[in-house]
């Protein structure tokens, strides 16, 4: 019965969505509103006003900077929520519901896999840093480099962490918390700098050199902070 109702709902929604979708302009045509309305201005003035060859980075760091600030705040908040959900003690620890069948024997890490992971990790980290630092000219930027760096750190935590102990953090806790908050902190600080120097929140300086430096700083902050948040999510989930 529930399945039948769900299928009816999905069929109705599908009919509405397809009827809406076939009336949109054909994908790929360059005279549709998505290409003529806002994006045309970004593409025309992106290099001067946005300060970056890669227009995606220009949109993220300049045109839509407040959106991006909210977004780094959201992922930091998600980390706090996950830490709260996994590490805070519950009201009552129910007895008898502990899942005994899930106590799997922990397989020791293969030395081959561990060696290859350790061998490749510096190269992946170099690539991630390259993606972050050249994000205003080539495809890449803070988020892209951050997720690559985060994936590399999760790989390392999977294969070379001490599996017998639960707390295998590399960094002292104080520094770790500051790095996890690096995204919102760096973004907020540089945004306030823009307010002081040019009167607009989140505006970039006019001088090309300083503009490039600020963009690199923003990308490094977003990337390293994002990577730390992703690793924190993984660790909290594994230990919780």
């Amino acid at each position, binding site marked *: 019965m529930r399945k039948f109702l769900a299928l009816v709902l999905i069929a109705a929604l599908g009919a509405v969505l*397809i009827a809406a979708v076939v009336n949109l302009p054909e994908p790929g045509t360059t005279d549709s509103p*998505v290409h003529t309305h806002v994006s045309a201005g970004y593409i025309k003035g992106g290099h001067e006003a946005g300060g970056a060859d890669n227009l995606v980075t220009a949109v993220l760091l300049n045109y839509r900077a407040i959106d991006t600030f909210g977004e780094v705040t959201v992922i930091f908040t998600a980390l706090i929520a996950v830490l709260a959900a996994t590490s805070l003690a519950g009201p009552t620890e129910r007895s008898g519901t502990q899942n005994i069948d899930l106590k799997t024997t922990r397989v020791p890490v293969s030395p081959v896999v561990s060696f290859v992971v350790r061998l490749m990790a510096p190269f992946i980290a170099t690539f991630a840093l390259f993606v972050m630092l050249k994000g205003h000219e080539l495809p890449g930027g803070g988020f892209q480099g951050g997720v690559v760096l985060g994936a590399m750190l999760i790989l390392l935590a999977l294969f070379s962490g001490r599996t017998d102990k639960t707390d295998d953090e590399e960094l002292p806790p104080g520094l770790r918390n500051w790095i996890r908050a690096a995204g919102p902190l760096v973004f907020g600080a540089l945004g306030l700098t823009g307010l002081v120097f040019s009167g607009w929140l989140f505006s970039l300086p006019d001088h090309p050199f300083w503009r490039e430096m600020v963009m690199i700083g923003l990308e490094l902050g977003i990337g390293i902070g994002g990577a730390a948040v992703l690793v924190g999510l993984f660790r909290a989930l594994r230990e919780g």
Partner: protein
Amino acid sequence: MNVLLTHVDYIAAVAIFLVGLYILLVKQNLLKKILGLNIMETAVFAFIVTAGMTDNGVPPLLGPDAVGPFASPLPHALVLTGIVVAVSITALALALIVRVKRECGSVELNELGKVE
């Protein structure tokens, strides 16, 4: 019929979205529901990126020798932030599911109704 062929990208995104919604509504396992939610999110992202593409697929990079028409950069930036937020949502939901398993001993929704 012709309009179905020219808009096949949009229709595929709608189909993926509907399958994700079906998983979210019908499956009783909470982790399967989160998978369905992720599928719906990626279907929406695919729809947004498809709306901003051009026929020859030039990325919006203004190099010295780049020629247009470029794909629209705004959908790319929106989807980029969306993906990172989606992984945060997934991690939060999974942490809550693990907590539910620890407290109640099950992650099936129809069994959870009987707990207390």
